[in-house]
């Protein structure tokens, strides 16, 4: 006659046995991963020597606090404005045609050179000179560019 049993007697490992079991499984892992472990140890040594490890430890320990401070800082209006500006500027730049930018930059460099030469000659510019140079094709192109640029900026400001 088998009476029903509701009790399970667990095999209770002593502390020593548990330790031995843990060490055994750890050792077998170590043996299987010798090379990577040695590399890691070296890296850790370097990090320790330089004090980075110590700093990281503290940072990780305080991670909740640090995150809250960081996010708190970032939600301040000047910072969100900064991020928004940076993102807006970044966004604006991405819409420019790189070829055009290159041309413009070349033009500006060339213009600076000419201006430097003009400064050197130290000659006075009169009204007539201004009207005269409008016929110069290079200057005319630059003024046309400037006027159109102003028109575009104006349109952009309208929205």
């Amino acid at each position, binding site marked *: 006659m088998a009476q029903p049993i509701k009790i399970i*007697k667990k095999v209770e490992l002593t502390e020593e046995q548990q330790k031995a079991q843990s060490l055994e499984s750890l050792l077998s892992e170590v043996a299987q991963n010798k090379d990577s472990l040695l590399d890691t140890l070296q890296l850790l040594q370097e990090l320790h020597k330089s004090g980075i490890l110590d700093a990281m430890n503290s940072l990780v320990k305080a991670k909740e606090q640090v995150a809250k401070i960081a996010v708190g800082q970032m939600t301040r209006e000047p910072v969100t404005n900064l991020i928004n500006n940076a993102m807006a500027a970044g966004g604006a730049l991405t819409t420019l045609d790189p070829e055009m930018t290159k041309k413009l930059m070349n033009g500006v460099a060339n213009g600076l050179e000419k201006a430097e030469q003009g400064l050197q000659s130290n000659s006075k510019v009169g009204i007539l000179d201004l009207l005269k140079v409008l016929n110069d094709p290079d200057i005319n192109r630059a003024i046309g560019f400037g006027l159109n640029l102003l028109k575009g900026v104006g349109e952009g400001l309208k929205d």
Partner: protein
Amino acid sequence: MSEKVNVFINGTAREIEAGTRILDYLISQDIQHPHVCYSEILGPVQSCDTCMCEVNGTIMRACSTVMEEGMNILTASEVAKKAQEEAMDRILENHLLYCTVCDNNNGNCRVHNTAEMMGVQHQTRPHRSKGYEVDMSHPFYRYDPDQCILCGRCVETCQDLQVNETLMIDWESQQPRVLWDGGKSINESSCVSCGQCVTVCPCNALMEKSMLGNAGFMTGIEDDLLTPMIDLVKAVEPDYQTIFAVSEVEAAMRDTRIKKTKTVCTFCGVGCSFEVWTKDHEILKIEPSENAPVNSVSTCVKGKFGWDFVNSKERITTPLIRKGDVFVEASWDEALDLVAEKLGGIKDTYGSDALGFIASSKITNEENYLIQKLSRQVFGTNNVDNCSRYCQSPASWGLQQTGGIGGDSATIQDIAGAGLVILVGCAPAEGHPVLATRIKRAHKLHGQKLITIDVRKHEMADRADLFVRPRQGTDYVWLSAVTKYIIDQGWHDEEFIQKHVNHYDEFLNMIAPYTLEEAERMTGISQEALIQIAEMIHDADGTAICWGMGVTQNIAGSHTSVAIANLLLATGNMMRRNAGAFPLRGHNNVQGAADMGTMPNIFPGYQQVASDEVRTKFEKAYGVTLPAKPGLDNIEMLEAIDKGELKGMYIVGEDMAWVDADSNHTQAMLAKLDFLVVQEIFLTTTAQFADVILPGVPSLEKEGTFTNTERRVQRLYQALETTGDSKPDWWILQQVANHMGFNWNYTHPSEIFSEMASLTPFFKHCNYNVLEGWNSFTWGSPDGTDTPVLYLDGFNFPDKKARFGLFDYVPPVEFPDEFDLALDNGRLLEHFHEGNLTHKSEGLQYKFPKVFVEVSPELAKERGVKDGTIVRLVSPYGAIRLPVLVTDRVEGKTVYVPMHSSSHESAVNLLTGGAVDVVTHTPAYKQTKVRMEVLEIDGENPLPRFNPRNATRTPQMGLEIYRKWERGDYVPISSVNEQVKPGLYDRRNA
């Protein structure tokens, strides 16, 4: 050839099948097009407005517009894109994109994916709160109104797919939201926790609580950090493509640690398949898929939320050996050596037939196959059986007699497609919930008729066109009378009978006595009702009859199952789609256990052990001589123990102590055994009698296949590592065989399946490749091909003709007068079987903490009992003590006790017993009478206030999207807003 129409899509001429909707076509051609609310299952919900196209110059929804000749469709014209963007803007007003810290950011969020695909950069309407609290009241899921985009997929699903009719959107209110029963908390509503609303939610408004704070790398962050982080994202207003990119990186990271594994549900025989999402050994959620062949996105509360038992601390995780009055942990070698020594010793001393093997309807086909092999090859006995003996053996037998195959004659789609469904002695909304949804949907949307015949008025009775309560155990009589009446009226299918059915004349003689008058007298069903049943069968295009334990757990269970088949044969409701015989299998692998030959008289595939030819085949394969005489079934094994002939038993995954009738007797017999091995995952009452307990694993920790009620074989994949030192059950069986000196050498269940299929004609063309992923195989042809609908090429007899079964009525057993109440019993939605698994779920226990006895209002009045009164029920076999629940679900002197208890105080099978089915020995659980003694008048209502049975459903036809369009502030996007009738595009028979 179906009709074609010619259209232009984005300038390209295309010829398309007439009647196709634009979106369906785009999806079929892999043309990317935005859509959020549409689902191939639900049809066009028409709420999100993101799928707009330009059609002949006007704006139209792609989801609901049927393509017509000459249509010019532009999916991405400026007009179309502007409309789509306007729609998405309205959605994002309702939904905050904090994807990276959202638990739904798992690569399958529809709102996220659609917005990203549309290239949404910014929104013009800022997100705003709806002003409602998050509803956290329910144990399994939560609703966050502020994330809800009001697409109404959940409403459409609850109203018209699950058809529990709880959810709605209050379109007329200032700020609409999803409501439960018109405004209750989720927990107090009529919600049955099927979880389908959560599954279909296209964002994170409805989430499984098990996912919250668990799925993402940053979603577990406390609120005081999370809120500022979300605020930061809002303040910074990055363009959304940046948000999407970051969240996608995070989703990809999640993918490396969340494992998604396809599995098959184990809580009933419907065979739902879905993915289980796990993180290490933690179950994050069940994720259904439209790819699942049986259930698609549907689940019930147990399948969606009932898996806590897998990680229960009570799991047995190491072999246990009985020593004195305790079990002591042992190594596998110690335990297996002892099993081999003791069972081998009994075999040597008393002979092979002193041993008995019980397989399980919960374990896999492969494991069932090995149990019959272990019993026959290793131990030399046919004493092997499984628990279908307790439930559906009579149905299988009845169908074998008439059509030749003991299984459902067609699929769940054919039940949905039938013109008339008759439920006899089964309550699918409780026991087979997903199958019930298909009937409820067809009934609500497609004009399907429903007759429910049951002693208890369950949900499907509430919904039926005709509900009839027969006298217990008299179904044979009304079935025969209705058949006779149909033939008398000339409404039978004479041509079908002449061509395909034998024994017609003998059958006519046999049913001659069953006139309407006689049937009324015997069953208590009025003649008008009987005529109405006959007329409804006559009027229907296809009648499907589903039946359950209310038929089979009677002494006439087998003969009544034959009477059902006879009715279907007489009316030509076999050999066709959308009709047929459907015994609803109660467990995930009831069908499979029998298919695999864990029965005393058959090898796998119903091949008779008595046949010399068959036995020779198996002897050759197994390399031993096999016994020719059929063995003992469950019931006979217990008798043999009593007589001292059976000395040792091996029981796998079956809590026989509680599921066999007359539990006191069963347990006394288990105690009498010389040696008992139990393979289990918990220390069940059966296991408490064991000498050795071998720890098996639940379905999530192994591979294999299950066969559902449709005869559909589906694979399950290993989702979790085995727990502790427990092992897959097939591995354990192999070890037992090998400790007995055999050399089984299976390295994977696929090899076991191949061996089985090589010996079993029905499975000839089935293997693990055929079953890969979501694929499945329905056995049922002698040539071993996939056969969703049986008998289309003839019945499974040599002359291909069916046979009217000629078996007489057997009236129910009589009880002494002192037992004046009829005891009905069975299962209810929240729990499975005796509760060993589902009682481990905190949420299920919260909703349904304990069993009770349902008492009719009239009986309650007569006996002076009320909700919570403690009574004792006494039968000739035993007594139980439990609280009363007064309900009109039962009538007069019938009481009902759910079977979900494994307690010596309240387990119903302490009361059942004695009588068995005349053919298959299935216990007549339903033929039990009791008397009731009142113990304490005042007590606590056993059904919690927040159990859905206490709430009232709020039916409506789907989402009723037109109410949104009627709002004064609704600005239409589409040129046409016309509601599509719910269910119109249901492709149930496609």
